[in-house]
């Protein structure tokens, strides 16, 4: 009995491999490429005619004139072929040291202790989080404004337009897409 069951199992496994492993992803790819080519290919965005990244993935920003993405544990940082969180335990010394170091950066922006936005000194889950919270972005505007020689208030108005609200008013959290905001900055304002 077992031998005939194994035979049927083998034949069914091959048939279902073709259906679910080849036909299904093939059909979905075809339809997706036809209907939503931008999203299906990674939401890649262009600037001055060349692709500068995906609006869904964080990329490293270190210059003062840009908003900076959240801390990243993906590969050596923002490696889009090695997504990862830190996986540091909530009471670990590894996390304590990382938080202490990043809190200094927040301090340099003039953020008082006890007022640091929660996403500002923590590492994201994917290491590729494309967003920061509106509060995090606003705190960074001080630095951006100085580097670009414009008043903070004018940047603040621009930022307001880039805050994406909760979906349906309840799903997810308000957020700012770092790459999109930086692209807007570059197209409107030169770096001093």
């Amino acid at each position, binding site marked *: 009995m077992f031998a005939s069951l194994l035979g049927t199992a083998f034949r069914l*496994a091959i048939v279902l491999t073709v259906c679910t492993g080849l036909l299904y992803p093939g059909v979905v790819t075809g339809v997706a490429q036809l209907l939503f080519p931008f999203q299906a290919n990674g939401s890649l965005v262009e600037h001055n005619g060349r692709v500068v*990244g995906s609006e869904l993935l964080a990329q490293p920003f270190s210059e003062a004139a840009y908003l900076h993405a959240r801390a990243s544990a993906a590969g050596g940082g923002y490696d889009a072929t090695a997504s990862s969180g830190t996986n540091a335990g909530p009471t670990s010394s590894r996390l304590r040291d990382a938080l202490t170091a990043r809190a200094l950066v927040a301090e340099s922006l003039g953020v008082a202790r006890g007022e640091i936005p929660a996403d500002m000194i923590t590492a994201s889950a994917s290491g590729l989080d494309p967003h920061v919270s509106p509060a995090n972005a606003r705190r960074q505007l001080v630095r951006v404004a100085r580097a670009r020689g414009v008043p903070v208030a004018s940047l603040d108005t621009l930022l307001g337009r880039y805050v994406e609200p909760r979906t349906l008013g309840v799903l997810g959290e308000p957020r700012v897409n770092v790459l999109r905001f930086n692209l807007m900055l570059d197209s409107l304002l030169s770096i001093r």
Partner: protein
Amino acid sequence: MTIHGWLQIALVLAVLLGLTPLVGGYLVRVYDGSSRWAIRLERLIYRLAGIDAEHEQHWTTYGGALLSFSVVATLLTYLMLRLQAMLPLNPADMAAVGPTQAFETAASFATNTNWQSYGGETTMSYLSQMLQLTFQNFVSAGAGMAVAVALVRGIARRDRADGIVGNFWVDLVRSVVYVLLPLSVILALLLVHQGVIQTFDAYRAVTTLEGGTQTIALGPVASQEAIKQLGTNGGGFFNANAAHPFENPTPWSNLLSLVALLLIPSAFTVVLGRMTGKPRHGWTVWVVMAAFWTVGVSSAYVAEAQGTSLLAKAGVALPASADQPGGNMEGKEVRFGISASALYAVSTTATSTGSVNAMHDSFTPLGGLVPLLMIELGEVVFGGVGVGLGGMLFFVALAVFLAGLMIGRTPTYLGKRIGQREIQVVMLGVLIFPALVLGGSALAISVPVGLAGLGNDGAHGLSEVLYAFSSTAGNNGSAFAGLSGGSAFYNVAFGLATLVGRFVPMLSMVALGGFLAEQAGGSGGEAAFPVTGPLFGLLLAGTILLLGALTFYPVLALGPIAEHLSMLAAMRN
């Protein structure tokens, strides 16, 4: 905590409640054969595989078919992974997967666990992701659904007493063709609309805005993402799983994923109710599941929103405000924040899915305890597709048996006796899980190769090991990912835990269904203990808690609870 956060949780439950009767009713039509819209594809598959769809199997044959299919599928996957370097559709030139890694992965995907001790984008070719991992996502889910249907048929069968429970091949094929494939196509396209990628193009290098280089991993993600949620599989295309923006880019995609992973397990309570002719019994079971889920999500949300002593000391604004999420954002994504991360963590562990949108290892001690507890209750809070209901029916049988002992009557369940041999297979199915978890964890922390894998020390290290064995033996697949599970020791240990943790309970479910199908059943079971309403619901919940909580309380006290207490002590200093 915010009002939006609580409303989000309520919304998910409401959507689930609304869809459950619809999908449940459809499942009933699929398994009694009255839904026939894909009959031509179905017949073609039977002809190619040489299956006689009219022939019904005795429960022993049914179990044998399940086992043979799983053996074949595991071996095929193992071979494919070992050979992937020589096969096409490998644009990133991935090397062959190593022997213990390939064994662990094959076992893990064939058992619907999808524990991943590798990073997808650094290990798997596109062909491996599709041909083996996507395929396994479908058939391991289909096998789970088949087993649940066989068990429910055994309970429901009245006309004869011959131990016949259906045809495994037919139940598997119909699960895939009528349920999983169409739902996956719809979900995959919705996900692509939201930004999930679906392409065969090679990884792409771009010059970033500051002039650096970033290589972007791509692939056919949406097709795998859809079935990974619907089939409660959980294996991510990428290492960061559903926290990766290419797998889960928006709050909409997050809601779709949450509903998808809860939907089929939830709908199976309707299958139970309708096929046994006691719809209220099905709903009583649903309410018990939903109650555990609600308490779990709420506890995790409160714990994560409160944050930790380290965050407070570093100067983080822990209360949420209109423009920042507050709480413990380490290992979480801004677009989800605290509420959607807690929702996801509890739903994915309650259902045996194991995909994650936040890193459980970095949760607060109590916030991490909840997902762990959800697995350790036996993954019966909705549970895996099919097997979740099967596991719940073990507890139903146990509750009925206990009630029978208390009132001094022969325990009967819907007119069928729960006798010695029935309770024996139930106990086998229930107890193998804690035996694997506690035995495996004890072994791992006693040997140097086990300790070498820990990503954190102290109580949290124990939690990592405990979580890993709970997740693999319970076929969940989520992780406290700081543990380096890719060593030969862990690969072999986890591979064995997934196999035993899957097939012993599943074969026990088939056997229980068979034993019940061997009884014609009395129709006059009305004098028996009622299996609907609040009294039975409380008894069932009590039985689950008694077994799950008491078994694991001592080791939980040494892991997450000890860590929580030490954190409180640190706060006071």
